[in-house]
């Protein structure tokens, strides 16, 4: 299935892209997807804190991702 992936802030620099469409196995969890992305991008692999949001919401790591989801990866936030 296909999902949409976005990267923000330093992760955008590390991956060299803002977004991409990714083919992933059915039933993949947020945690599984995070490991997959860390495997694709060496610089992200070393990061302890890789936050993930699905469709603009923080969800538990065991949440299953479904076709067409927007999944965002980003470092701890620093607004304010």
């Amino acid at each position: 299935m296909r999902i949409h992936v976005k990267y923000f802030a330093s992760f955008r620099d590390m991956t060299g892209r803002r977004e991409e469409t990714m083919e992933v196995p059915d039933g993949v969890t947020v945690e599984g997807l995070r490991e997959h992305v860390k495997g694709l991008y060496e610089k992200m692999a070393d990061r302890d804190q890789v936050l993930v949001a699905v469709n603009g919401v923080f969800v538990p790591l065991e949440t299953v991702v479904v076709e067409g989801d927007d999944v965002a990866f980003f470092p701890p936030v620093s607004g304010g």
Partner: protein
Amino acid sequence: MIRVQREDIDVDAVLEAVKTAGSGCVVGFLGTVRDTSEGRGVERMSVEVYEDMAVKQLSAIRDEALERFGVHRVAVVHRIGDLGVGDSIVYIAVSAGHRDEAFMACRYVIDELKERVPLWKKEYTSDGEVWVEGDRRE
């Protein structure tokens, strides 16, 4: 009022927007660009946002503040893009019947914003460009 914008913040307009006839006060918090960060001189800053999510998160935080502290109205305006030293970054205004709940709610909103709202600062310092990252737990 929840806004993420490039333009400067009209603090007076936001302040007026939260007033109600039953309010006895408005508490405001204005965050500004500081000229130092961890010992380095900061020349300017840029702020990046994941806008759809930021607006959702800020709306949720506003609703929590209204519910928890019984305040009247909460407004949050956060800037994105390029900012100079002394520029406004964020303005939060809270109206309430009395000051105690207004101060508490205002504090709650800025603290939660710093933990949960997808905004990131990049500082342009004497040592180069540095992404500022918080230390949020998962």
